[in-house]
């Protein structure tokens, strides 16, 4: 298991956003988290990536307890993520946005940038650029490298975010509703892209409302409702689980 979430709870001023959550993500698997709005999915992502401190429990990544670590150190350990609402750095170019992804794996400081003591800094910059270009090609946006990020169509911005997360070369990548706002064609491409990322051996934790996409590509699905885990299993099990159906369709009278 690459990620172990044990008895995790999160409260906001007494409101129980998540209680007693246990989820294990296996190496190299696509693991989907689904549930109605307000179930606590994004809160869980924020706990994993360190945006929030958890109230109770423990999160381990590659057998290291990470829930005390600052977000950037979790990224450095190998957790990449995208956001539900796209958060690119608007005034920078697409390529620069992806280059930021390698920040914690590179070293050049302010003084060295300025004085350029050795060739090392220039080499590092070149390597960063090549790496970023490679990932832009991977998501199919190399031709837009020099455009300002905020000028891209929404679906492409989502892909840039994925490229930015990949630039870090993470072992686990958290995708928060990557298909939101995409049309059918774009969703199909995304579907293929996620599988491709998975084939590279990266584990993927996925929040998604598009059930077709989820059922097709996920190896394991965890269902949350009102901050609690109500089901877990492969897609066929989830589809026939009465609790899940109730959560989505409401109590049948």
């Amino acid at each position: 298991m690459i990620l172990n979430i044990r008895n995790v709870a999160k409260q906001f001023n007494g409101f129980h956003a998540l209680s007693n959550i246990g989820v294990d993500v296996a190496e190299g698997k696509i693991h989907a988290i689904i549930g109605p709005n307000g179930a606590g999915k994004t809160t869980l992502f924020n706990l994993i990536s360190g945006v929030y401190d958890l109230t109770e429990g423990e999160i381990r990544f590659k057998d290291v307890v990470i829930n005390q670590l600052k977000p950037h150190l979790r990224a450095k350990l190998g957790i990449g993520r995208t956001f539900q609402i796209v958060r690119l750095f608007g005034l920078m170019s697409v390529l620069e946005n992806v280059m930021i992804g390698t920040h914690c794996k590179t070293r050049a400081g302010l003084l060295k940038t300025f004085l350029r003591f050795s060739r090392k800094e220039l080499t590092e910059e070149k390597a960063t650029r090549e790496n970023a270009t490679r990932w832009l090609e991977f998501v199919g946006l190399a031709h837009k490298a020099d455009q300002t990020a905020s000028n891209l169509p929404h679906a492409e911005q989502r892909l840039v975010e994925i490229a930015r997360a990949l630039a870090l070369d993470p072992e686990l990548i958290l995708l928060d509703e990557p298909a939101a706002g995409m049309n059918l064609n774009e969703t199909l491409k995304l579907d293929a892209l996620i599988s491709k990322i998975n084939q590279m051996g990266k584990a993927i934790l996925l929040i998604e409302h598009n059930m077709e996409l989820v059922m097709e590509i996920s190896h394991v699905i965890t269902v949350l409702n009102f901050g609690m885990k109500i089901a877990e299993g492969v897609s066929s099990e989830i589809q026939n689980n009465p609790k899940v159906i109730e959560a989505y369709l409401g109590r049948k009278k």
Partner: protein
Amino acid sequence: MDYLISVATIAGIYIIMAMSFYLPFMTGQISLGQAGFMAIGAYGSAVCSVKFGIPYVPAILIGGSVAGIVGFFVGIPALRIKGIYLLLLTLGFGEIIRVVFINVEYIGAAAGFPGIPYQDHSLLYSYIMVFILIIFFSRLRKSRMGRAFHAVGSDEDAAEVIGVNITSVKLIAFSTGGFIAGIGGGIFAHYQEYIEPLMFDVMHSVEFIVFTIFGGIQIFWGPMFGAFVLTMIPEFLRVIQEWRMELFGALLIIMMILRPQGVIGLDTIQGLKKVSSRILGRGLS
């Protein structure tokens, strides 16, 4: 001629000050205390020259370094707070520095610090510093740290999650800003020969902000342009000279209404590139 040199020197120092505000500003930290760092650099370098006989360049570097170190320590509490709170923190810092200088007899207290050795080549030195800053900022734009600065400035939470150590980025930006302001202060002190705490009050910090915002905040040419133009123009138009500050104020309000990104924006640079390539292209054909 002497008059021209004096105006140009002051413009050079103000460019340095505007850049000292701009660097932390890039990471989303807005400082109302840059005049305080300038004061530290000015007094620090003046003490080096007058009391210890240290030559000009090292004296100024020492003054700048002291300001940078103080910047580091002010930067630590600044990490935890944002927006209006940070503004108040830096404002309080600047005022405390000024009041401290008013009370220290060793450096002349409220009466000021006279007898600082005059630097003949202040103009040269201030523009050497401006030149260094141009190289620094243009390299920064295409560097790892520069990208991190921009990222933290536009969305620090997102930047942290994707692996940017925002604590170190913000501290580095803040203390480097302090260092730059200290250098500006040192050059200023050795040009004026006499400094007093009143020269570094909060309205001066405000002036550096006005330069930056007027010039433009998207790229570093903006604050440079703003500081230079707003210092030079009033000196040459008598009418404006008298109403200089009122004009600054009105300009600031009008800019905020019509073009909040400042005179020089990314679009300006792209436009200039287009025009220049068109002219060059025509010349070639």
